[in-house]
């Protein structure tokens, strides 16, 4: 029997945009066990809530992550609004939904680019990121920021979008849809990509349920779960959609699910723009939170949990975020067991890990 070798993977690695360290116990080319550890970018943002005004903390919450920053801001606002029993105006709910779905397109395009880069498909990487720039342009035009928007606040949103702007967004997304189809067909039909990803890193439905996976990772293994289906704080109850699900559970299935979600998000934005009601964009906020509240939101990477506990002052006792990557790390550890060493980078990327979110 061959000897066991431990190979350190990360925190600096060409495929890892963020620092995570995994000790890979290897026997020849096979991974026997993977032991992850984190803590390179831990900032203690949850603790900071004790020293920041709960209204100003939205800016901190947005900085948990640079990719799903809008979702983090929205999730925190929803938790505080729940604790203070604030009714958000319907127009604000629609605007938030539109920005959140744009964030999903932005996140999935960024991921597709990283995925292509991980397998050495540079052209596809550049094409994905070129498309992503168009979404960032829409963000800049409508919020003033490309990554951190600061457009969400307790009780609603800060900026409105005119009818002309909303229609222009839909027109641009319609143009983008055709271009996206060309890029995504490369991902799903190109023989090299299929050979590289098909049957690699299989996570069975049973494993996905047992390991409490969330988001596209769970849906790629046949687990139907999407928090948008029960979301009453966004506009999702007025929009029709079905969760994107695959059954294979391998790297290609995770890729398929995210690609399907790109087109699904464009469809959701189109529906939301058609139905967006007129009215106020923010509710009046009086007093300080006294209660506690749990809420959850479907981020691009999956279900995220936000919890706040108030004490009647403007400083909260506790703010907790459970990010999707937090829930998907056990699945990564399980999927790495028994895989080839050459497939490790591919597998890590298909989980779409966001370590900055995870460490907060």
């Amino acid at each position, binding site marked *: 029997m061959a000897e066991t070798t431990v190979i350190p993977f990360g925190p600096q690695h060409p495929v890892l945009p963020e620092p995570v360290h995994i000790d890979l116990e290897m026997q020849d080319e096979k991974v026997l*066990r993977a*032991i992850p*550890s*984190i*803590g*390179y970018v*831990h900032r*203690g943002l949850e*603790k900071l809530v*004790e*020293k920041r005004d709960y209204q100003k903390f939205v800016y901190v919450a947005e900085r948990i992550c640079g990719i799903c920053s809008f979702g983090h801001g929205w999730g925190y606002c929803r938790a505080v609004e*729940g604790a203070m029993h604030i009714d958000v105006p319907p127009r604000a709910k629609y605007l938030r939904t539109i920005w959140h779905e744009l964030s999903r397109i932005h996140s999935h395009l960024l991921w597709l680019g990283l995925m292509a880069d991980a397998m050495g498909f540079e052209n596809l990487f550049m094409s994905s990121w070129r498309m992503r720039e168009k979404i960032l342009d829409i963000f800049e035009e409508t919020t003033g920021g490309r990554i951190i928007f600061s457009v969400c606040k307790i009780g609603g949103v800060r900026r409105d979008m005119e009818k002309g702007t909303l229609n222009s967004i839909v027109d641009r997304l319609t143009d983008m849809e055709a271009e996206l189809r060309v890029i995504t067909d490369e991902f799903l039909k190109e023989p090299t990509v299929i050979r590289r990803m098909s049957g690699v890193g299989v996570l069975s439905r049973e494993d996905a*349920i*047992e*390991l*409490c996976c969330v988001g596209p990772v769970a849906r790629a293994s046949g687990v139907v779960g999407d*928090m948008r*289906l*029960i979301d*009453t704080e966004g506009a999702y109850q007025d929009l029709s959609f079905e969760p994107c699900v695959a059954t294979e559970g391998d790297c290609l299935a995770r890729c398929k699910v995210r690609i399907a979600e790109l087109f699904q998000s464009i469809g959701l934005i189109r529906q939301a723009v058609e139905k967006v009601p007129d009215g106020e964009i923010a509710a009046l906020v009086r007093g300080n939170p006294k209660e*506690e*509240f*749990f*809420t*959850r939101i479907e981020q691009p990477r999956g*279900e995220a*949990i936000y*919890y706040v*506990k108030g*004490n009647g*002052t403007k*400083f909260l*006792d*506790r703010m*907790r975020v*459970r990010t999707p990557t*937090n*829930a998907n*790390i*056990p*699945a990564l550890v399980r999927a790495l067991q028994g895989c080839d060493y050459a497939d490790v980078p591919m597998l890590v990327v298909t989980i779409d890990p966001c370590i900055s979110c995870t*460490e907060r």
Partner: protein
Amino acid sequence: MKQEYTEIESPALLDNVKEMKEDGYRLVQICCTRVPDGYELTYSFDKEYNFCHLRLTVPESGWVMSITSLYWSAFIYENEMHDLFGLDVRHIANDVDYKGTFYRLSEKAPWHTPPKKPAPPVRPQAKQPPVSKAAPAGEAVKTTAKAEEGAKEHG
């Protein structure tokens, strides 16, 4: 979203979590909150979008049993509670018990201290009356002493 917390005692944790597992619930998260008399732990579960919570309070010197024997994925939350709050979580599954090294921290259990309500902001004081330009009495005495010393040296 309904907010229901089932209060349980620490020794009954494993039995309650086992019931959730047998009912087909998924572990969503574990949240540790520092309260003045210890730690408030909230275990959240989900089954077909039914979101529910188990809650227990552990005294500051107390400990809590790991649930990794039932939900292996709980190791992320339990190691985090141990590393950040200093809570003693016992019997974490051997292969995922990091013994305080899951997070790389420069300070041990940095979130151990309970939150303090910040002191009210200090109001700026009223303007002081303008100080006269004449030298204060203390300086005058010093000058006199120096002059005396100088006089002695010149003798």
